Structures are given as C-alpha cells and as structure tokens.
C-alpha cells in the first residue's frame, strides 16, 4: 500500500498520544505551525487504557486557549484510527491540509515579523 499524503505535514512521533501535552501544542504554534492534529488509536483501544482520552482533553483545552488568544482553536484537531488503517490516515491528513489552507497561515508568523520591524 503506497499511499501518499500532503507534503505539508510533518510527523512527530510519540510513544502514545497520552504523551502529548497542551504545552507541545502551544509551542508548535509559537514556532509557527499553521495547525496541529493529534492522531491516536481508536477510543477504547489504547494500549495504556486512557492515553488517547487524555490527549482528547488536552486538544480541547488547547482549542479553548487558542481561541482566547486569537490564534483559533479550529487549527487543532484530535483524530482516532487503527494503526493499520493507512487509507484513514491519508484521509485525515488531506482533511487537515484542506482545513489549514482554508484557515490561512498562523497569525503568529506575521505578528513576529511585524513586531521585529517595529
């Protein structure tokens, strides 16, 4: 199965989505990421029982925080799939890619340039 997905996506591997903290998501935006999505196992299938549920909560909190500071919570998403489900992985990647194209670039990138110039 040689499926391709958008080249705009950079994968950061973690042992379990339970490892992903709000801080990782926030830092990604500070560093200029246009969007972040967390791909975990299907709910109920976590090897550590609750890793992907924790990740979902953190994604929700990051969304709220990003909405409050004007970056936009819609740039963050939680996805679940089975690790052998290549086609669904590609589908999520494409959906995220399109969503971000629609949302436009991370406003922080522009703001940083402006603040430097000022």
């Amino acid at each position, binding site marked *: 199965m040689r499926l391709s997905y958008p080249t705009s996506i950079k994968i950061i591997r973690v042992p379990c989505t339970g490892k992903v903290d709000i801080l990782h998501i*926030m830092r990604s935006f500070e560093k200029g990421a246009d969007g972040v999505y967390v791909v975990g196992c299907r709910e109920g299938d976590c090897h550590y029982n609750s890793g992907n549920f924790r990740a979902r909560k953190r994604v929700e909190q990051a969304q709220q925080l990003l909405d409050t500071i004007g970056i936009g919570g819609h740039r963050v998403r939680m996805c679940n799939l089975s690790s052998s489900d290549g086609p669904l992985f590609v589908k999520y990647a494409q959906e995220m890619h399109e969503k971000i194209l629609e949302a436009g670039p991370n406003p922080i990138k522009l703001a940083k340039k*402006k603040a430097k110039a000022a």
Partner: protein
Amino acid sequence: MIVADKKPIEEIIETIKDHQSILVLGCNECVTVCEAGGKKEVGILASALRMHFLQQGREVNIAERTLERQCDHEYLEEIRDIIDDYDAVVSIACGVGVQFMAEKYQSKPIYPGVNTLFMGVTEARGVWTERCQGCGQCILASTGGICPVSRCAKRIFNGPCGGSASGKCEVDKELECGWQLIIDRLKALGRMDDYENISPLKDWSTDRAGGPRKVVREDVEL
C-alpha cells in the same frame, strides 16, 4: 494540600498589559499537584501570553521559572539576581507564595495568576475537595475523623441541623451533609455513644476570628 484554580487568562492579561518584561513564576508544591501553578502551567501560560501580545503587535518578554516553593526565604532568594530583569511578576503559587514574594521584593509588582481556594484532597483525577479550615484547635478525635468546621456549611458542633435530608446538605443538593458523614463514621466505628456527648462552645480565638495567627517554636528556632 492547598488547592488553587487557574485564573482566566483574560483576567491575567488585563492586569499585566502595561508591562514590557514579565516573569511567570510557578511553585513545585501544592499548586503543581492540583495542576494550577506548576512548571507545566507556567509553560502554557507564558506561551499563551507571548502569543497574545505578539498578536497585539508587541514583543513582550515573558520568562518562565518555577521554584521549589514560594513560601520559604531560601527558594525565593534564588531569583534575587534576575528579578530586576523584569518589571513585573505573575506568580501562580497560592496566595501565600504571592504575598511572600511581594514582601521580599518590595518595589516589584507581583500579580496572582491563580485563585487560591482551600486546604483539601485530590478526590479523583481533576476533582479536589475541602477538608480543613485550620481552626487551630482540632476536634477530629471526637467527630470520627470528619471535620464539622470545613464539611458542615454552618460549622455546627452538635449537628445535623434541620436541613439535612437524605444525606445531603440544605445549601446544595449535591453537597454531602457533613454531620451525616460524621454519624455514619461513628456508627462504623461503634462509637455512637460519642455522638450523644454535647460539644462545648468552641473557642474561636485560635481560628481566623482571633486575627492573623502565628506559630513560634522555640525548640526549632535559630
């Protein structure tokens, strides 16, 4: 532990908006355990603040630091060398830490980043509840280990009051009646005879009513 909850970020932004260089200062003790003011929360708050100000067209210096405790001289001294790099501090320690900071660094504005609530326990992940109000004269020995000062809404000593219904308190249907809990526990201990003893009037002078309190221990004083 002392339980605190995060302040809304909008409120923090409003208090610090005129500063140009800010230190966000966490504490490794109680507020870390109740996930309101530890190193992780410092990182998240600082990151959000930096992005907020950038969006406003301002590159505000927001630095991060977390001390072992903010209620002891020795740890607060650790920032003496760097404090003047900032024109304000947001402390996300409990109110005790914020105040000790303010006492120590007289000319530095210190703002609280959490709301400090009570002394309590972690009942479940993400759920903290009150257990003690530091009344200064503990009576848990006669109440089956359950505190009527902190767990009865009226702080009564010979309860329950007439508002106790089906184990719940009249002030809030979700709230367990502290006196029902005391009775249940005394029953479990086979000590219902204790319940029949009328508690004498409590001396509230050891509580907050007697003004700010102080403990001096000559045996450990230097």
